[in-house]
């Protein structure tokens, strides 16, 4: 009896250790953001919230934050719509080049982001010469690039969701007189809501955290939050940057909680 008790304690401890290992950096960042020191030194001399006070003064961080938010939300919406449409085509129809299309849609996952970024940059730059007006840097080309890297996630998750919908449900709807559109709206949509939410979250987070592709496409006056952070740590590393990161973590965690309220994240992943 004591043996099984010990082994149960042991396995719980092990799980706790793994969990701690994964989340430790996050808690470190939050902890450091409250350090009083000008430089990150252990142990801290004391604690304060003055790095958070500075957030308000550093206007460029706030601007970058809202710019990122704008790009990511728009990229998420476009990527969800395109992802849904292509997933419907892939799961519901047989056509020539279907396999190729699927591979093509997922390919940004395989190529290193920095390569994709450079490729998109060169493409836009060449197009600029050809068209005769500026494409880089612009809000739209940045959003377009973010759609490219988030599309694999929405396609993957939504088509997985669609594959899980029993085809006889759709047939039952049609049999009872529903049109294709009505079947989609009343039967398919409610069934894939969890995968749509998951796809949205993934798309948003990948866009919001992206550094490599944005790096090529932003202007000095309009940068995303990750780039603003990178710029800052080039010059100095202090707890301020931890405060910025903490805010970012809270935003994303908040989004997850909202999503959980709507669909229950355990159903999503």
């Amino acid at each position, binding site marked *: 009896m004591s043996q099984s008790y010990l082994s149960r304690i042991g396995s719980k401890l092990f799980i706790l250790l793994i969990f701690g290992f994964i989340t430790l950096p996050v808690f470190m960042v939050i902890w450091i953001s409250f350090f009083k020191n000008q430089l990150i030194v252990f142990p801290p001399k004391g604690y304060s919230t003055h790095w958070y006070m500075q957030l308000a003064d550093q206007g460029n961080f706030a601007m970058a934050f809202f710019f990122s938010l704008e790009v990511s939300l728009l990229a998420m919406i476009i990527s969800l719509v395109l992802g849904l449409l292509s997933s419907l085509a892939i799961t519901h129809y047989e056509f020539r080049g279907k396999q190729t299309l699927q591979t093509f849609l997922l390919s940004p996952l395989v190529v290193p982001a920095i390569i994709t970024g450079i490729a998109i940059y060169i493409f836009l730059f060449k197009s600029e010469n050809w068209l005769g007006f500026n494409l880089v840097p612009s809000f739209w080309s940045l959003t377009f690039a973010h759609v490219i890297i988030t599309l694999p996630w929405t396609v993957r998750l939504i088509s997985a969701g669609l594959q899980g919908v029993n085809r006889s449900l759709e047939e039952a709807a049609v049999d009872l007189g529903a*049109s294709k559109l009505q079947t989609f709206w009343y039967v398919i949509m409610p069934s894939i809501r969890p995968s749509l939410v998951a796809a949205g979250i993934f798309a948003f987070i990948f866009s919001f955290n992206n550094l490599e592709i944005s790096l090529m496409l932003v202007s000095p006056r309009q940068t995303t939050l990750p780039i603003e952070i990178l710029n800052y740590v080039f010059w100095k590393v202090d707890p301020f940057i931890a405060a910025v990161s903490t805010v970012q973590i809270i935003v994303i965690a908040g989004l997850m909680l909202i999503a959980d309220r709507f669909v229950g994240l355990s159903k999503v992943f």
Partner: protein
Amino acid sequence: MAEVVLNHVIKRFGNSLAINDLNLSIDKGELVSFLGPSGCGKTTTLRMIAGFLEPDEGDILIHEENVTRIPANKRDTALVFQNYALFPHMTIFENVAFGLKMRKVSKEETRSRVLEALSMVQLEKFGDRYPRQISGGQQQRVALARALVVNPRLLLLDEPLSNLDAKLRQEMRSEIRQLQQRLGITSIFVTHDQEEALVLSDRIVVLEQGEIRQIGRPQEVYDSPQSHFVADFVGVRNFFNGHFESHAFITNNGIKIFTDMKQKSDFKKIGIRSNMIVVNPNNKEMYINTFKVKVELITYKGTIIELLVLFPTGDSIVVEMPSEQFKQNTFSKGDQIDICWRPDSVLPLSS
């Protein structure tokens, strides 16, 4: 008047012929079963009638209207799926109301018709539940109510009872039959279970490899199957190959079996039901066919005892005898017994 007509229907999947020149006509209010093993084309035919598959050739008529090219949602048919296909995110009420909603029926009318349909299947109290909160048998009844509530011209049932346990299956069987007769709705019932088909149907269509092997009332199909395949499917277990010499059949091993065949025939096969064979009767002569055989195996099956017996020629057949009779007339493995059957129990079969 024929309510449903299939006219030279052909369906191919790639290079293989799924349905080969099917002709069938179903009368109004009739319940017809499609009986056959998996892959015989029974579900394919049903799906063509429902509108989910388009035949490559031939026409399908419902109520004298050619519906061959009409999509499923515009046909006046309702299908009960094998897995019920209830919408999991809708309540039972919403599930049943779905067809009416698509037909733009008013709220009040929908409400009364749904409640009526639910009470028809004794589920009026379950409207607020979700499909996962009710049992398999109840889900089955919801599926039935959902199909019936739209007053379809034709009710299609695709092996609707195959996911239920034996006892429930029997209950649902008679429930479906009663409902169907009360509403007088023309129905097609797909099944691979001969007993189900025999109990439920007005007529049975036996299918094999995309072709109709036999059509008839349950008793006709049961009592006089025309081919080896059909006989096998309706439970005939003993077959002999051979030829007819006037009214007697001579098996390839030389066993002479008397039949009631009136004229010369060239059937090359006969079948005999296990339960038509009598063991050690007092009045042997009455049966005309009498054989001395050796008991090879005795299997107890509750109400009946199943015997595997061996002819001196080496042929073996299966004999069923009531357990009660076995108690009074015991013998054991290896014993010699008399088995008898009447000439009219012999079923001439085409192969």
